[in-house]
């Protein structure tokens, strides 16, 4: 299987995630699209790890997952706090960063 197929697959996943982050207004769905983009990068990293037969890229994927988990914990806490304040998760209401 050529490595280009994995390259194009992860590129398509990344662009779908980016489209979603720009098109949707729900802050949680924007957040999920960011997770999708992180996973596209992870898939490409694993494909390159197989290509060069090197395990450093897989360690890097592991660290990306660690950072994503920490990011989700803080980000969802922020979204819950915002929802308590303004009773909405619409990013057009949240864009003023005040209530």
């Amino acid at each position, binding site marked *: *299987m*050529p*490595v*280009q*197929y994995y*390259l194009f*697959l992860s*590129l*398509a*996943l990344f*662009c*779908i*995630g*980016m*489209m*979603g982050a*720009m*098109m*949707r*207004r*729900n802050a*949680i*769905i924007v*957040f*999920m*699209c960011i*997770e*999708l983009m992180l*996973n596209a990068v*992870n*898939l490409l990293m694993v*494909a390159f*790890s*197989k*290509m060069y037969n090197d*395990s*450093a890229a*897989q*360690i890097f*994927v*592991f*660290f990306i*997952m*660690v*950072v*994503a*988990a*920490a990011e*989700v*914990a*803080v980000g*969802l*806490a*922020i*979204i*819950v*706090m915002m929802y308590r*304040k303004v009773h909405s*998760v*619409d990013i057009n209401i949240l864009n003023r960063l005040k209530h």
Partner: protein
Amino acid sequence: MGVYEIIFWFLTVMALSCALGVILSRNPVNSVLFLIATFFAISGHYILLNAQFLAIVNIIVYAGAIMVLFLFVIMLMNLNADTEPQKNRLVQIAGAISGGTLLLVILAALRTSTITTLDQTSTDIGLIKNLGKTLFTQFVLPFEISSVLFLSAMIGAVVIGKKEKEQTA
């Protein structure tokens, strides 16, 4: 076309269609379920690429922990109905066009790159034993720093969630 190719194309179509389902479905709960299906397809790709440890970690951490957290938050806020108001059409079209343009530009730039075929022989660099040896010798300092990151993220989430309660009480 062997079994390997059939599994590859099946997982690819599943990942792309479920990723489109994430951004196109109106109900946030459906989006979360589509995203879980996408993560399972990506885990299948990891197994095809001999990254067994990452496949398991992807299912446990992403599909198991992070997506359940998303589902909890959506159900906590009672967002499972379609509450998203109709967005300005122009912004949606602009988002789709700019994302598609990025896809086209990078695709055109990478189209003529030299083909490198991944061999299907199984390697053991993705097993826990070898990854653990690399992680605890070569990458031990980033590993310890990531534990500090986790601690600070945990404290940050608790502080952010708690401050609001004190103000309202």
